[in-house]
């Protein structure tokens, strides 16, 4: 065990002062020290995308980023999407379109889509770009069609 480093993580607008070993990845620190377990770890090698969070607005696989790399940056997780007691429209759309079954990959897909489409909703109108985006993440339950429909519902494809 190596010595911990004190860092400040800003997650969903809240500051978390934590001491972490440099080797710890962001996902583990979010889930552990920050207690934000909505972010899931599906492969821990950057393929499945279940751990996707937004760092400075960009989708990031939090299993591939060290927590110390995220210090001082603006991190958003699935817990921070609802505002004023209202779900993000894409969260509502995922439920309405059966974009989830077991729910384990859901936070990753939600953060992937919200990060990309809130910045550029036109992706929803371009099937190739949308497929390319959604191909970033894996789901083993739904067969994906509900996730695609949810994007179109929320972003008016």
């Amino acid at each position: 065990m190596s010595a911990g480093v004190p860092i400040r993580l800003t997650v969903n607008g809240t500051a978390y002062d934590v001491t972490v070993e440099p080797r710890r990845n962001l996902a583990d620190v979010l889930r552990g020290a920050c207690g934000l377990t909505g972010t899931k770890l599906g492969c821990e090698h950057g393929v499945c995308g279940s751990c996707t969070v937004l760092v400075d607005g960009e989708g990031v696989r939090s299993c591939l980023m060290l927590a110390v790399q995220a210090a001082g940056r603006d991190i958003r997780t699935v817990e921070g999407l609802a505002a004023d007691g209202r779900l993000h429209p894409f969260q509502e759309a995922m439920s309405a379109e059966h974009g989830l079954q077991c729910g384990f990959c859901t936070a990753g897909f939600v953060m992937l889509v919200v990060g990309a489409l809130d910045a550029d909703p036109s992706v929803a109108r371009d099937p190739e770009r949308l497929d390319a985006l959604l191909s970033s993440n894996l789901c083993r339950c739904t067969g994906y069609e509900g996730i695609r429909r949810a994007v179109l519902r929320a972003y008016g494809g």
Partner: protein
Amino acid sequence: MGVRGMEKLREVGGFVLPADSAPVSVRVPDAAASWRLGRREDARLITGAGRYVGDLDVPGCLDAAFVRSRVPHGRLVAVDTSAATATDGVVAAWTAADLGDEVPLVPVYLATPGSAHRPCPALAVDRVRYVGEPIAVVVGADRYVAEDGADAVRVDIDPLPALVDPGEAAASAVQLFDGLDNVVTDMEFGDPVPDEVWQRAAVVVEGVYRQPRLVPTPMEPRALLAVPEEDGRLTVWVSHQAPHRLRDDLAADLKWDPERIRVRVADSGGGFGSKSGTYAEYLVVVRLALRLGRPVRWLEDRAESLLASPQGRGQNQRVRLAADADGRMLALDLEVDADVGGYPVGAFVPGETGRAAAGVYRTPDVHARVRTVVTTTALTTPYRGAGRPEQVYAVERTVDLLARRLGMDPAELRRRNLVPPEAFPYESPTGRWFDSGRYEQALDLALELADYAHWREEQRRRREAGGAWPLGVGLCMFAERSGLEQKEVAQEWAAIDVAPGGGVVARVGTCATGQSHETVFAELVARTLGVPARQVTLVEGDTAEVPQGVGTYGSRSTQVGGSALHRAALELIEEAKRRAGPGASYANGVVTAGGRSRTLGELAAAGEPLRVEGVYAAPAAYAFGAYVAVVEVDTELGVVHVLRLVAVDDCGVRLDDEIVEDQVRGAVVQGLGQALYEVMPYDDEGRPQAADLLGYLLPTIGELPPLTLGSTVTPNPNTALGAKGTGEAGCIGTPPAVVNAVVDALGEPGIQLPLTPEECRRAVAGREAGVR
């Protein structure tokens, strides 16, 4: 507690069989009346508030990491844990010797002859039999520390020869278990086909197929958290499909009364069969927690899951099919060498392949011989379909071979041989009872939805014109056993309680891993009772709340568990009427007798608790389907493009069309993965060759073909609910349809799963060279 509903069924040799006559009459709901419910599960799952095993915050919890064999087969000479124990933060490091006088044995799913002689220790004792086999376990303050410790364990193994292929292992002089044959069981189904049947047949075709090993790969790998309680009890949080079996297995290992163990299934990140067993790691973690007196958690990581979690499929198959000149099937013979891996824990699975051998065809002579064989590879246990995809693949590919030989349209060949509706209940030559089916109707619908005639015309056009990528059309027809035949699992426990305030709690022994039970089962009870759905809550997956149950596997939940809830609700209505007095009537949650009307809640407040509890029988049913795939093959790159995929499924009465389609879509995409991408390859030395999800490929949204779903409704005649199962159909129907289409395109029947670009290029090269 007696099992209710058996009076209308038959029990033969421990199997529950459908009624011979006078089946239950079921009203088929109008498809437009489908419930189309919003899922209750979603509120927590879309906000990150779900609680999976890894999310539970338990003070003082330790994490476990396993040391696994890197050698496929060998004598375990020494395991040195001293450096691990000295690692900062490590609390314990154990080998088999630390597990007590008796090393726990991994329970088999269903006892098969020979399995008891080839025990699977929870940690290797003196021999390792596959890469990934657990040898030691290290417990630390957290996962990082535990893995530091695991890395420090030194293992000394004297290698022995590897056995990778079940056919070769069956014939090898190298024995995995000293003094015992590598063939564990040798099963026969049906009578051997007489020689004269083959001799007088106009046509006999033969196909040889390989079923690759698949890794089920739920997005959440296996997970278990054992919490010793102060009162001497044990709570086990787990991602699981069959919590009662797990409880009983753990109790048997500990020699405890099962009541001391509470198994609680947290939110589960998918199962697909791979979370239905009691695995080595579970036994070890439970013992660690009890010995240390502290909570211990094991979260399998993906690399471990690919290496060491149980896999699916893994069969070598040989099929012979005889027909007369008109294409009427005369005889089918199926030979299977099934690879059960290093230990025969899941050796019952291939039995399904043999028992189902005839498929949907009225072939008079059917015989199957299935050998289960140990090899130096990871265990195979049930994976979505569990023996059925293997059977259907073998038969459906061979039916297409027969069509080619006869020069007959494969749809027409199938049509001539289907078991007709009036033949049900139909007993197949392998001793299987099929309850009901209207196979031709499903075929007709599938051909219509696929626009079959159009694609045949397009195929003809391309063949004549040349130049374009070759196009092929493939069919698959199947019947899928849903629910189970053995008496002890052809039933489910259910209870319904009404609280004085009118709240209804429904409990059932099934256990969802994503299948929307909270939504559908609560609605089913509400509609049966005629009360608002918001009044009804479903409880499952907690052995303290649900005292007994079978679980969720074998496509049984709605068919058996839903039926149990339905009948419990009907009994509750009868109980309410009985309490209200003579001549009582019931409607919409209100019982009326002698001019006095009371709600269920008022009735519950007035006297004894208003409760119904029972175990309800439901025999196996046979859902069925017809699938059509249209493909073109890029002959230069070997890439298969699926242009159309049509899936027609008949799972009896559908409670909620959308939720049924959720199951079908997911399974179809898993089936597509099996057809085109998925395989866990082993090299000749027995080492697995895919270490991550870049090596083991799952379909992404980019690989989705245009998919059309269709349905017909042939009610289950043996329950008043009329539902059959549907969880596995998609991965049964899809692979043969896609592969048959590729064979049709390339004209090369030797092609084997998965149809990777390399495999397709080999087929193209064979075709170009004229090699047959």
